[in-house]
């Protein structure tokens, strides 16, 4: 294949890469098991290198011990080089303690299993490892709600989950590749000299040096390993391959990369050290190296370099790569040969990983749209598409300069951020708007705890004379719960900050070295908060139904509605049918229903935007939850949109399953009316299309146009799942026949048969009345 834009041909792997692929396949197990499987290869004899370092350095400051602990755990992980591979490096095992994706060091309690220490010594060590731990958060929460009991009620009601959990961010791969690791050390020295404030700052810079040197040492570990393998190897071709790996790793251990092969090895080094997090705009930062290697030649072909990095991502499940979009400097189309090549390789891998997103704008080439729809038509649910218009507007609206806003990428479960410059705290917390609606219906009490009122006193639903009076109650409750929610989110961030949770990301995130402040403490240039939002469509539809049928037309009395809801509609089927069929629903391009959804969402996200996270910037909205919509739904009673107790609340930003009956464009129009740009954190919309529909190239063009139109008229993120509805139903009955049926759920693609029945049902109900 020479023209990567072609859809009638497929990318063929070189014989060497085909062997690598065949080798990877048996190592791939269902997603959750992947990491463990490979890491078991190098279990370091039950020792815990993380804890060792803290024990060996009793007097070192936390940040120094932490950095050393990270480095030690990498360097004690054996170097594993698989046959034929060109790019090397595997993740390290999940030790009882790890540094990433949490409030601090995960598993710090294992300190108490350490033998030969008194309880006091164990406490000391524990406090050194976790300067601020969960008890801090709990105490703050108890204070906030007045008592432990109240705090338990709030958490039992599942109104929100605050405090943050992991925080995907994309490190600056441009900085890494432009400077090389020795260049990074120089950069650190430069800023250390400028910010020589106090010992704490000096310790901070030293910790950064420790990390960078560790990465160099790790690359040399692989270089030596490859050299050893080369020495033992009899086969001339393999000997040469290993010599190349040794040279390549040794080169980028210190120097800045020149060729594409060097660039991808260095890129992968940071990627694994970053715990296989998201990779940002790889087609942009690798492009200069691609051009160089294409012109001057390279140890391996450019195709093999890109295939190698894709295979690594495939095997180890790095989260997200973004292609295309506009260039930061002038807004012209940024798609290049690499964008197509990455997508073609993904197409030939044909699996749920790597996950890719393509940024869409007015001048996105038709060939790129054709390639995307061709991939969907082959049953893949990648790539996701993202709207430049919407995402860039959202970012500039909150104060990001245009040039930076244009560099955004997607990450995690389809969140949006500016790579290499930010910690958007994805996700600082999740919030169930529907639960607050339920509490407002009950005058401030939850249905689970009818005798207790934690939040403000508002009127019982039956006492409200007008719809607006009731809406005011809802607003009051929403304001209260937003306030306590962001307060708790802030406390979670304080914990993360005090624990320096992300030292690997720190030197590679703009702002941290400049300010001398770590990644989680407000060091990055951008520090917006992200509130994952659930339950808006059912809340809006419930409000619309109440307004129309109870207050305006008076077809259902307030008392009857309350009784029907508390009986979960048992004995009230007529009322439920009225609520279902005689009040318009969000998702049908109906102005009345859509306006309510806009009102609710705007209210909540504007409310969030009144608060600044302790990292320094305002809280913004986001919505890319599916499983959240299911879990939150289980804790909910019946709702006036006709929904039974316990049913899912619907996934992400789309209408409640089955509520949209006017076709895809009507549904897209409804969603595009929402203030999605205020969901800076990322708002996903799931659309299921049948393979049959996409099999016709003319129809694919229309689908591409529909999607592009959505992207240009207010839509933000869309992920398309392709399948036959019969396939899906059959897969429920005969999972053994449909192991390869890929669907996209919230932030991830997965085999349909691996999902629970309720998630499967929810996907099936997303069919928009389309005949399969």
């Amino acid at each position, binding site marked *: 294949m020479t023209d990567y834009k072609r859809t009638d041909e497929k990318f063929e792997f070189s014989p060497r890469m085909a062997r690598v692929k065949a080798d990877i396949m048996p190592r791939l197990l269902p997603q959750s098991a992947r990491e463990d499987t490979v890491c078991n290869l190098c279990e370091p004899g039950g020792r815990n290198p993380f804890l060792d370092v803290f024990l060996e350095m009793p007097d070192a400051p936390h940040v120094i011990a932490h950095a050393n602990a990270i480095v030690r755990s990498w360097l004690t992980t054996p170097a594993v080089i698989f046959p034929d591979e060109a790019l090397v490096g595997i993740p390290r095992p999940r030790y009882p303690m790890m540094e990433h994706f949490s409030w601090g060091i995960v598993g710090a309690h294992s300190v108490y299993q350490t033998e030969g220490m008194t309880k006091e010594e164990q406490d000391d060590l524990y406090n050194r490892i976790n300067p601020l731990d969960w008890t801090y958060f709990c105490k703050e929460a108890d204070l906030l709600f007045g008592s432990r009991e109240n705090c338990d009620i709030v958490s039992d009601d599942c109104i929100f989950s605050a405090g943050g959990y992991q925080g995907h961010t994309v490190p600056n791969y441009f900085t890494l590749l432009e400077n090389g690791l020795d260049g990074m050390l120089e950069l650190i020295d430069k800023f250390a000299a400028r910010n020589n404030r106090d010992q704490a700052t000096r310790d901070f810079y030293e910790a950064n040096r420790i990390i960078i040197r560790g990465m160099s040492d790790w690359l040399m570990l692989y270089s030596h390993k490859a050299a050893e393998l080369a020495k033992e190897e009899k086969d001339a071709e393999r000997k040469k391959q290993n010599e190349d790996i040794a040279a390549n790793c040794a080169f980028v251990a210190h120097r800045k990369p020149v060729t594409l092969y060097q660039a991808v090895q260095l890129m992968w080094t940071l990627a694994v050290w970053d715990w296989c997090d998201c990779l940002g705009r790889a087609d942009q930062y690798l492009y200069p190296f691609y051009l160089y290697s294409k012109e001057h030649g390279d140890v391996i072909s450019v195709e093999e370099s890109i295939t190698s990095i894709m295979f690594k991502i495939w095997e180890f499940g790095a989260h997200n790569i973004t292609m295309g979009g506009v260039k930061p400097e002038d807004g012209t189309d940024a798609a290049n040969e690499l964008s197509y090549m990455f997508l073609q390789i993904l197409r030939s891998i044909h699996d749920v990983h790597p996950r890719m997103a393509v940024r869409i704008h007015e001048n996105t080439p038709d060939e790129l749209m054709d390639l995307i729809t061709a991939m969907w038509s082959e049953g893949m649910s990648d790539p996701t598409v993202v709207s430049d218009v919407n995402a860039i507007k959202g970012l500039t609206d909150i104060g990001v300069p245009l040039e930076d806003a244009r560099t955004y990428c997607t990450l995690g479960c389809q969140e949006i951020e500016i790579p290499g410059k930010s910690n958007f705290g994805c996700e600082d917390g999740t919030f169930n708007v529907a639960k607050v609606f339920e509490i407002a219906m009950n005058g401030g009490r939850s249905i689970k705890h009818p005798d207790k009122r934690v939040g403000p006193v508002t009127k019982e639903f039956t006492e409200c004379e007008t719809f607006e009076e009731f809406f005011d109650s809802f607003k009051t409750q929403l304001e209260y719960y937003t306030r306590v929610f962001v307060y708790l989110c802030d406390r979670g961030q304080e914990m993360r900050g005090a624990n320096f949770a992300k030292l690997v990301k720190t030197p590679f995130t703009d702002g941290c070295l400049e300010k001398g402040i770590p990644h989680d403490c407000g060091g990055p240039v951008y520090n917006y908060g992200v509130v994952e939002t659930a339950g808006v469509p059912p809340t809006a539809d419930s409000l619309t139904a109440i307004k129309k049928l109870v207050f305006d037309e008076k077809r259902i009395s307030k008392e009857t509605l309350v009784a029907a809801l508390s009986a979960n509609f048992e004995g009230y*089927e*007529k009322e439920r049918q009225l609520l279902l069929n005689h009040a318009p629903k969000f998702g049908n391009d109906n102005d009345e229903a859509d306006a309510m959804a806009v009102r609710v969402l705007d209210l909540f996200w504007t409310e969030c935007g009144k608060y600044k996270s302790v990292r320094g910037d305002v809280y913004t909205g986001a919505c890319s939850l599916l499983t959240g919509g299911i879990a939150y739904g289980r804790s909910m009673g019946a709702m006036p949109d006709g929904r039974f107790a316990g049913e899912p609340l619907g996934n992400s930003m789309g209408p409640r399953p089955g509520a949209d009956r*006017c*076709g895809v464009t*009507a549904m897209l129009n409804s969603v595009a009316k929402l203030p999605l740009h205020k969901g800076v954190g990322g708002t996903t919309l799931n659309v299921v299309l049948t393979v049959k529909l996409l099999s016709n190239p003319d129809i694919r*063009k*229309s689908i591409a*146009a529909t999607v592009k139109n959505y992207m*240009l008229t207010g839509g933000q993120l869309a992920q398309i799942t392709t399948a036959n509805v019969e396939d899906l139903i059959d897969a429920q009955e005969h999972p053994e026949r449909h192991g390869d049926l890929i669907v996209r759920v919230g932030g991830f693609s997965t085999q349909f048969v691996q999902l629970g029945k309720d998630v499967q049902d929810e996907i099936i109900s997303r069919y928009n009345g389309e005949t399969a």
Partner: protein
Amino acid sequence: MLGTVFNIQRFSLFDGPGVRTVVFLKGCPLRCVWCHNPEGIDRNPQIMYDPKCCIACGDCAEACLKHRHFFAGGLHGYVREGCDGCGKCAKVCPAGAVTVSGQLMDTDAVMAEVMKDGSAYRMSGGGMTLSGGEPLYQGEFALSLLKSAKERKITTCVETCGYAKAETVKEAAKYTDDFYFDYKATGNGMHKRLCGVTQTLILENLSLLCGLCARVTLRCPIVDGMNDIPEHIEGIAYTARDYSCIKEVHLEPYHRLGISKAEKLGQAAAYDGRPPERGRLEEYCGRISELSGKPCRIS
């Protein structure tokens, strides 16, 4: 301008180029035995009743001034004779079991609905398709919709059985980008037997469209045991060959979607067969293209 519309279907991808909205106009001069839109035949609004959705609440019986709905032993009965289709029952039915097919709408209201997808049409080259029933049966209304669509600069298609006044066809051609012209039977006898009318007027209109240099796609329903005979397949091929304005032929395999709709109208479907085999249709396609020299595909 007022007309009776029984459905407005958005995101239609198979009724012309790009993303389209199909407006279904009520009323049809033909009586095809396999009709797949039986609610499109009668010009006037009709009550549709689906017992599967009924929750036996009795509200319809209370609302009906003519006592056409009644309940006996918890079962819902509905008598069509004497019902004027006023729709009061449908308005109160909570469950959507009683609905009205056919709504009086003016041109602007229809166009407002159609133009909700205006930007998708521009992006995809799509637009409005008129269907039915027979859209040219409500000739004035159809023309007013087509003119309005052209004023809004969107593409237009008309799906017609061809049985309409020559003046209407001539006028429609001015505002129509693509005609999807039915060819259901060959020869007056067969046509009369299967569709209730002879073919003469239809073929005259086809000639008329050719004279006006219209762009026509011939649409041919293939119904097992009805028109699935060699003479008709040849008839399709020769018609496609002889009429210069025909660009393409589409074979449309019979589908069973009309049956449940007939039931809701209280009618027994006159034809209850199976869709024809794919392989046979492909064979027909090959023969038709060969004989006519024009592309033929299964839609």
